[in-house]
């Protein structure tokens, strides 16, 4: 029953299969299972920017000039599904190459 804190996980360096840096762990994605448990389904990795939190999910439509700025500031973000993670220790090692990773287009929040 090992436990870790999200604060320890966030900020940990992340490497892809070939050891190339994916930046650091930005966030943890969880999903509520039928039994009511919140299971981690993946990590969001990338370069840390304050704007990382700004953009939130799809429900934010900042005025046109800022929309591009926010998306540009978060261009490094990639989503690492839990199955693609070989070793969640420090640093986090992925089983896949960085090129096959996509940004996380999941639902930001809203009426979760």
């Amino acid at each position, binding site marked *: 029953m090992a436990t870790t804190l*999200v604060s320890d996980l966030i900020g940990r360096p992340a490497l892809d299969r070939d050891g190339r840096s994916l930046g650091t762990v930005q966030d943890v994605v969880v999903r509520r299972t039928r039994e009511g448990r919140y299971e981690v389904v993946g990590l969001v990795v990338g370069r840390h920017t304050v704007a990382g939190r700004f953009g939130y999910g799809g429900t934010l439509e900042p005025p046109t000039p800022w929309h591009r700025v926010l998306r540009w500031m978060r261009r490094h973000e990639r989503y690492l599904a839990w199955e693609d993670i070989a070793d969640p220790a420090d640093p986090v090692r992925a089983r896949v190459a960085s090129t096959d990773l996509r940004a996380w287009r999941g639902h930001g929040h809203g009426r979760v």
Partner: protein
Amino acid sequence: MEEQTPFRIGFVVLDRQIIDGDGRPAGKVDDVELTWEEGGGPPVMSALLTDSAALGPRISGRAGRLWRSAMRRLRPSVSEPARIAVEDVAAFSPSTRLTTAAPEQANLAEAWLRDHVIGRIPGARRGDDAGE
């Protein structure tokens, strides 16, 4: 709450206002605890941590260490931040609503100040003047 869509802890849980069972604010979600079961598989969100002491690790760097040492000096008795089991959480959005009362530990400072400082000043127990 059968919502299945995944969500990011940083967007929905972290730094969110906690409202306890009877609707009173009970601090912010300062950190989240993940637990690995023996059978392998992905970890599970097991608890929310709330207490300004828990904020320390999130303020990385020198400020964080400063913060933690200040907290330890202020409250040597309390080493562990207040822990809220995930099962007690009714909903995560728009704020983190609990089904139960907030853990006593979250309100230690509030209680101490109420009894030793604010409670002593006359008029402290006046009723809520709902804006009138």
